Structure formats: C-alpha cells, structure tokens
C-alpha cells in the first residue's frame, strides 16, 4: 500500500517520493497507465511522453548489450537484437548505474527464448562475446592470482584469466563474422564440448583451447581450491590428459611459476 503524506496547504494526499519513483518505474516496465492527474505534459499526451522515457531506457540497455555482444548483433541483425534487448531489459533490468556490469545473464536468456531456437549456437556466441568483453575491459593493473605449489614456489595466473565452456563452435563463428561471413558456411555446426581459456596480455585479448584436465585444474583453482585439490580434480575428470597440463597451463603465457616472495617481472 503506498504511503501518503499530506501537503501543508491543501491536505490533498500525494505519494511519497519513494512510492512515486516505484510507480513511475512500474509504468515504464509494464506499459501500465499512469494516473493522468499526477502528471502534466504539453501538447503531447502524457502516455506518449512516457514512451520517450521508455524508449530511452530500452535504447540504453540495448546499446550496452550490443557493445558487449557484437557477434550476436551481426548474426541476428540490429532490429531483432533490439527486440531481444527490450525483452531482456524488462526481464532482467540493470542493477547499477555502471552498465558494463549488465548482461551476464543475456546468454541464458537467449538459450531460453523460443525465438532463437533456430540458432542453437546463439547463446554460446553470446557467452563468448561477453567473456571477451569482460577480459578486454578488465582492470590492467590487478596483481596476478597466486596459488602455493610448495614451500618455495607458487603458480601465478593472469588476473584477467577466464574460462569458457562451449557446446557450439562460437569462436569459429566469431572469427568468421570478423573476417569473412562467407566462412560461416564452412563451419561444422556440431555440438561438441569445447573448453577455452581467455586472458588479457599486453598485445590484447588472447584465447586458447584447453584440454579437459587443464580446464578442470584451472576451474577448480578459480573456484577456490588449493593446487592439490585442483590437481586431484584434473585427475578425476581426465586422467589421460593430465600430461597436457605442463604445456597448457604451467608453460602457458598466462601463467608463471615463481619463488614465493619474488617480485613479478
């Protein structure tokens, strides 16, 4: 029930600012009618003035999503992307004024949306777009993440490092979109589990495939496991691929084994 305060001079009840803002936001979200007596406009009807605010909100959200999902925009076109963005905005509106936080759930939204079922790879493309954007815009000066190997040595991982698990060849699709869309025809659209590591280096955002053992090892580390626990996870998931971890992780450009207390080079 909205709280009311009384105006000093005419005792006409009015909404508190908190309730007014809640009602206004609800009118934007649901297209619900706003009590006409509460708003004034000029020659343009109040409802159509609210359309301007609604369009501004949708435009800002869609623009933020488009910036972080460029491949999805290219695949579905700006018009359809705009409709997806509108529905996502009202399904999962932003939580903060920093819109670069926004869109973490967009891939899952696409996976659920019946309109995109003809493009089963679209959600994975969105996941890839999103993670490349996040890594590319990660703070550059963060110290590496460190994991103790033994009493003297530690494993250092790039602070920007992210892992990605895909079912569809989203990286091939993105590469084709960026270079030559004709290459899309040549991509084998077969659902197969693919694991990738993404990080930011001095020369830009890098991505490499990972074997199952390396993925399980890094996944466990990033989820808070010790090196020993992570190693056991790797053995558990892919004992035959543990040998690949030396090249894929320990000697990878995103990792470094250093003496504990040694300054990073």
């Amino acid at each position, binding site marked *: 029930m909205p709280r009311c305060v009384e105006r000093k001079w005419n005792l006409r009840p009015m909404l508190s600012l908190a309730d007014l803002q809640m009602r206004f936001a609800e009118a934007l979200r649901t297209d619900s009618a706003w009590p006409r007596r509460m708003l*004034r406009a000029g020659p343009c009807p109040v409802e159509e003035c609210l*359309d301007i605010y609604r369009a501004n909100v949708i435009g800002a959200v869609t623009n933020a999503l488009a910036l972080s999902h460029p491949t999805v925009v290219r695949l579905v076109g700006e018009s359809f992307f705009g409709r997806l963005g509108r529905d996502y905005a009202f399904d999962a509106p932003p939580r903060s004024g920093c819109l670069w936080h926004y869109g973490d759930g967009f891939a899952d939204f696409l996976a659920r949306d019946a309109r995109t079922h003809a493009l089963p790879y679209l959600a994975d493309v969105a996941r890839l777009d999103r993670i490349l954007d996040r890594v590319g815009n990660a703070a550059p000066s963060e110290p590496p993440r460190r994991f103790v190997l033994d009493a003297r040595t530690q494993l250092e991982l790039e602070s920007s490092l992210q892992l990605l698990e895909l079912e569809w060849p989203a990286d091939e699709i993105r590469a084709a979109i960026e270079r030559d869309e004709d290459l899309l025809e040549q991509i084998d659209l077969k659902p197969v589990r693919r694991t990738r590591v993404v990080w930011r280096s001095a020369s830009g955002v890098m991505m490499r495939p990972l074997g199952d053992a390396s993925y399980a090892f890094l996944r466990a580390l990033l989820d808070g496991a010790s090196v020993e626990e992570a190693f056991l996870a790797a053995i558990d998931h892919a004992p035959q691929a543990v040998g690949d971890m030396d090249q894929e992780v320990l000697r990878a450009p995103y990792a470094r084994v250093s003496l504990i207390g040694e300054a990073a080079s």
Partner: protein
Amino acid sequence: MRERPAIAWFEVHAENFMRGGLLGEDLDRIATFYPLSLHAVGLSLGSAGGVSAEHVAALKTLCGRYAPVLISDHVSWSQVGDTHWPDLLPLPYTEEALDVIAANVDRVQDAIGRRLLLENPSVYVTFADDDMTEAAFLAELVRRTDCGVLLDVNNIFVSASNLGRDAAADLRDILRQVGPQAIQEIHLAGHTVSRTRSGARIRVDDHGSRICEDVWNLFCGAIAEIGPRPTLIEWDTNIPEFGVLIEEAAHADAALRGAQVEPPANALAR
C-alpha cells in the same frame, strides 16, 4: 591524439571508465594532454533510496586518477530499489525531493571532497504536485549544498518546447534565481524533432545532431548575461566525423570570445 586538436578540454561519461581496461588506457592518453571533466549519469542523485556507496567510491577513484577540472551529474533519478533504469527520469519539484537530492549531493561531495555541478535535464512531463519551478528548485539546491550548476541550454529548450512553455523565459528565470556565480559549465547539444503515435510533435534530447539555431540564440543570450563559461558540445549518438564536432566547438568559441574565458579549473575550489 596524434594530431592534438586545439581543444581546451574534454568531457567523458564517468561510468564508461569505472572499470579501467582498454577504454581507461585511451582516457589515460587523453588526460596526458588535455584537462578532463567527468560527467556522471549514474549517481541517481534524486533517488529516495539514496546513492550507491559503490558508485560513489568508483567516482572517487576516478577523481583521484584524473584530477578532473569539473565533475557533474543530473537533477534526476534512475535507481529505485535494486533496479537501475538507465535514463534521466524526472524529479517532482517538491520539498521532499529537494531534501532527498540535497542529502545525496552532500554525501557525494563529502565523499569525493569536490564540488559537484548539477545539470538541468530534459523533461517530457512534470508532476501535478510540483511545489516550485525548476529554477527555484535549482537555486535552493545550490543554497543548501554549495553545489554548482551545469546549465544545459539544449535541455531548457527541449523541456520548454515539450511542455508548451517559453524557453527564453525559463532560461531567464534560472539565471536570475540561481545566479551567475553558481553556473560553472554550459552544455550544448542537438536534438531530434519527431512525431508521436498520435501525431503530436515532440523534441527528443538525443545528442545526435548539430545544435539548432534556437539553442545557439539562447546560449548567446545566457553568456551575454552571465559571461563566458566552459562550454561543451555533447554529441554521443550518430557520432559524426571529428571535424564536425570541431566546427560546432569553434562556433561556441566564437560566441564566447566576447569576454575573458575562465578556465574550467576555476571551478575546482569548493
């Protein structure tokens, strides 16, 4: 940056740089050669629920990194509960709203140790329960918080046109009530004239075109009365060739040259 155009200063949306990254590196290069102004759009200073401590902390970090000559946001709100509607939504001009925004402005100014400039937004509706005019609201906000005002001349024109008012009269009212000392920056921008579903004519503040003649005339009238102020061409949609922006900036400069231009750094002290 290679050509180092003869621009006095640049302004950026603060929120675009709150995570560092590649964009932050670009801004570092700009800040090496030019004074910067930070124009926030996400503080939601008019929210009854207050301002986000995280957002204020991020703005403070940016201020520490770039030592901006000006810092601003709007007389508007976007956040309600845990939802942020990314637009400059209209505040009722009431005593309660004044109390709320003044408390929020105080909180931000205390946290960053700097004066904020508050911008008059474009509005498409007003509230039937308004207690005061926009000019009176701004003036009282300045009096209570010692904030400055970022006078957006295009917004005055857009709001007045949409609400069936006289833009020149609204501008005069703001200048008279707020006073020249408080006005420390001016924004100019283009807007779109469109038709709504019912065929009504409406001006939409979209920063996507050249500044119209009416807005130039209002601007000239404003600086004739209060003197020159640091003036920014806002253009953030349908972005044209850089030369077009330079032309618009040169047009503003020509209008400002009638008097000694104070550098934006003069607005630093609180």
